[in-house]
């Protein structure tokens, strides 16, 4: 039977109709073979628009539907559903993108209309050859994996666990808490970071629905939405957590010191350690790299004092397998290595420090017990805070790090509160966009802080006059005054840029994600789905998607959790039906395809000597279709015949 094609051309308000003569497109379509109905309408995706499609299917016995509108990423699902509701197999629908591919990128109305007609003619050519496909559902494992135990991951895990969903949390450090655990006070309310974070850390660790793996990393992920198989490597800790009582005597007795990563290298920790006093879990672990026993073969001082006998020197890495339905990636951020920004003197001048170091100086459990001191142990009389170090700068990171202005104001306040120092803030623009942030800035304007609108060019120790001798001099152009300032100070704090984690590319590959140009994980849609990724069932939480302050990271984590929850409580998911299929009769078992599938969907049937494709894993990407030398793999919904028909239709105009 000849196919009966219906064509629906959308105005998208003026988005399309402003450039493309939509009525003419519909008129052209009416003249093509097999097109039995064509019309145009203001908003095809609206309820009346969808109703038009459904009615036309019934009234004109249409069995192939073409909607010429926006990108299939926006509304393919909408129209597939409308077709299904009118009794038509959803795969007998084809979308022609005349918005992103046409009206939005052209100005010449005449030419754009002709192009739109070409695009629709191609879609009709493909539609004639479309075949119905059966969608399949798979069960969703009612368990979620949260990778990274910063505040975003903690919030996500708590929301999921409180909803009755089992959660596996993997954190690579000794303790959860992330960067927020390093902070002292938090803007704009100045509440103590640990006071608001530690209860959540304890809550998540003690939650009956949460399994927490620290000192652990995800090594491998296979499977698909609803059914991911995850391999987790738990690093050997040499302390049996079931026996250890966390008394901490080993921390006192261990004679070996090494730099403390948590204290940003400002002080040391022991070879047996916990990240910070309120670490969760609280049981210490042995750092093999610095432990004298592992380096020299003798010591074990800790063991002598350990009453419950918790040390296990033969401990090895353990590999754990978990099957989860959803994955939430919450791996947070890193900070720009300030020593790579030579002009600001970090690494050369001891009293040029980073923001995160300042957080530790300011913290009661930090290296100075909370006193803001220079390296020589004296209080600074004058401090400069430099905004946008490495941010908003084409030479380093083009984006705004979004938290620096606010924490720089916080630092200024804390300095004024705790010391008698004069405080200078060098900024480009003051970005105080959150709730209560502008108010915080206004408050600071009355606290005697000196604000200079201008980015600091460099920091030097070369004096130009007596006043500058023995001090650090910040040079900046004060743009409001139109003059270059030299400001001698005793301490410089660099608000260095928030950057992606150095292993973000590897992590992206492991979880099937991609990176945005800024290097952070790419979301599915920048506005409407900032918490999803292009891989179904993999979600993003917190600063791993882009710089975020705590309220945003928490909200993002909660949003990711609720999306994962929706997936899990639905219980099953439809998997893509437009998958690749092996024509067994044509496959001669050459095995060329075996290793090329990016989703590991291809296997081999030994007895039959043919390749097999797991339809649940296949995403229909077509890599194997192109690779198969024997033309034995068909990409359903994108068959050679369909694609060729489209190409021929393009040149038939």
């Amino acid at each position, binding site marked *: 039977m000849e196919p009966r094609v219906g064509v629906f051309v959308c105005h998208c308000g003026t988005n399309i109709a402003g450039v493309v003569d939509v009525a003419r497109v519909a008129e052209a379509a009416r003249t093509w073979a097999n097109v039995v109905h064509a019309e145009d309408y203001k908003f095809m995706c609206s309820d009346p628009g969808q109703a038009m499609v459904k009615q036309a299917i019934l009234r004109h016995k249409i069995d192939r539907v073409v909607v010429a509108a926006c990108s299939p990423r926006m509304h393919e699902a909408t129209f597939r559903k409308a077709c299904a509701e009118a009794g038509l197999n959803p795969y007998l629908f084809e979308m022609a993108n005349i918005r992103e591919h046409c009206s939005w990128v052209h100005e010449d109305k005449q030419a754009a209309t002709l192009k739109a007609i070409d695009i629709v003619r191609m879609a009709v050519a493909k539609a004639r050859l479309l075949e119905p496909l059966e969608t399949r559902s798979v069960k969703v494992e009612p368990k979620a994996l949260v990778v990274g135990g910063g505040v975003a991951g903690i919030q996500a895990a708590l929301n999921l666990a409180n909803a009755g969903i089992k959660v596996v949390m993997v954190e690579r450090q000794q303790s959860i808490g992330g960067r927020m655990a390093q902070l002292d006070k938090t803007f704009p309310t100045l509440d103590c970071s640990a006071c608001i974070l530690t209860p959540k850390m304890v809550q998540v660790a003690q939650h009956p629905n949460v399994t927490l793996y620290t000192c652990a990393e995800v090594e491998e992920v296979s499977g698909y939405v609803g059914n991911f198989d995850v391999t987790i490597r738990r690093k050997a800790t040499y302390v049996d957590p079931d026996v250890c009582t966390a008394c901490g005597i080993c921390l006192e007795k261990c004679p070996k010191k090494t730099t403390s990563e948590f204290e940003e290298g400002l002080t040391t920790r022991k070879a047996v350690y916990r990240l910070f006093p309120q670490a969760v879990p609280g049981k210490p672990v042995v750092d093999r790299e610095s432990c004298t026993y592992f380096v020299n073969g003798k010591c074990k001082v800790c063991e002598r004092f350990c009453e419950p006998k918790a040390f296990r020197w033969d401990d090895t890495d353990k590999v754990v397998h978990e099957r989860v339905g959803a994955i939430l990636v919450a791996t947070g951020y890193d900070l720009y290595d300030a020593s790579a920004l030579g002009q600001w003197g970090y690494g050369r001048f001891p009293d040029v420090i980073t923001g995160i170091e300042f957080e530790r100086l300011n913290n009661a459990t930090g290296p100075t017990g909370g006193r803001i001191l220079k390296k020589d142990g004296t209080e600074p009389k004058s401090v400069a805070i430099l905004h946008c170090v490495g941010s908003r700068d084409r030479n380093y990171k083009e984006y705004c790090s979004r938290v620096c202005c606010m924490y720089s104001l916080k630092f200024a306040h804390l300095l004024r509160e705790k010391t008698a120092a004069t405080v200078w803030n060098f900024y480009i623009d003051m970005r105080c966009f959150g709730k209560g942030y502008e108010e915080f800035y206004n408050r600071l304007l009355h606290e005697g802080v000196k604000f200079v609108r201008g980015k600091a060019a460099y920091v030097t120790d070369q004096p130009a006059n007596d006043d500058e001798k023995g001090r650090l001099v910040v040079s900046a152009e004060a743009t409001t005054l139109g003059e270059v300032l030299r400001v001698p100070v005793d301490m410089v704090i660099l608000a260095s840029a928030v950057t992606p984690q150095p292993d973000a590319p590897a992590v992206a590959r492991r979880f099937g994600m991609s990176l945005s140009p800024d290097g952070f994980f790419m979301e599915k849609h920048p506005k409407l789905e900032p918490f999803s990724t292009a891989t179904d069932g993999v979600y993003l939480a917190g600063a791993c998607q882009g710089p975020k302050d705590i309220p945003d990271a928490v909200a993002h984590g909660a949003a990711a959790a609720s999306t994962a929850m929706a997936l899990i409580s639905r219980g099953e998911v439809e998997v893509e039906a437009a998958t690749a299929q092996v024509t067994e009769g044509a*496959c001669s078992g050459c*095995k*060329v395809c*075996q290793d090329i599938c990016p989703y590991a969907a291809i296997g081999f049937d030994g007895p039959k000597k043919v390749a097999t494709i797991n339809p649940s894993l296949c995403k229909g990407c077509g890599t194997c279709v192109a690779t198969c030398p*024997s*033309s034995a793999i068909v990409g359903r919904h994108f068959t050679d015949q369909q694609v*060729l028909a489209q190409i021929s239709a393009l040149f038939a105009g």
Partner: protein
Amino acid sequence: MADKKLQFAIYWAASCGGCDVAILDVNEKILDIAAAADIRLWPVAMDFKYKDVEGWADGEIDVCLFNGAVRNSEQLHLARLLRRKCKVMVAFGACACFGGIPGLANLHDRKSIFEAVYGYTASTVNPEGTTPQPHLKVPEGELTLPVFFDDVYSLSQVIPVEYYVPGCPPTPDTIMTAVTAIVTGSLPPPGATVASDKSVCHDCKRKKSDKPTIKRFHRPFEIVPDPEQCLLEQGFTCMGSASRGGCGALCPAVNMPCRGCYGPMPGSLDPGADALAAMTSILAASDDATVAAETARLLDPLGTFYRFTLPVSVLGRAPKAS
């Protein structure tokens, strides 16, 4: 059938003559063919004149085995004429089926071919620069030569064809399978190819690893192949996986990479692209520089991957100068 002998015609167009010799290669079985059929036309073996063919009634001949591609007006004329006279038309051999080696002339056109052949090849001596002309007036009258086309065609590109017997040349087994089917009246439905539906790899006895990779491309003379392992994995541009089987994988059995003479796999649109995509997909190279260096070792990719199939592939031919 039993009382009346089958009427056969065998014709050659743009071909090397190998296909005709291949028919003789069936050895003593040729006598069985002669017993079952009258061979009414076979220019390579018997004398005949065009007017003999023109004199036949339409459909008088049962089967025509047509070998060679079509690249001039005489071949086209004969193809059309024989089509009228014969009930069943068989494209015999790679050139008739897919254009074959002569089909590689589609990388050029008449002008550039004449310039080379009558102009500057190493063996050309042509000080007057004479080139073939379709018409030439001489005192005795007008001499004519067939018109040479810009394109080389496969047989089915110029006339309807019922069956395809591929190969360069078809193996004796393939020929006997085809002839037996004709003689016993057990021909498959029209459009069929008398060969396997699986690729050469299916019949190849070489060992394939589970995840094949190519580290470096080699030409057959460069290294001595391992006699057991798949040639493709050893870096030879073996066309086996992209080529229809039926030959019995004779070439790989004697250390010679498959050249793809049985043509594309069923359903394939472009065997050259199929093979090229497969080989480059399994190339074990992780950076652009290595990829470039290794693929640069694929000399004459067109001649390798489209050796027999250029006219029937999606590529078809190189763009014409004009």
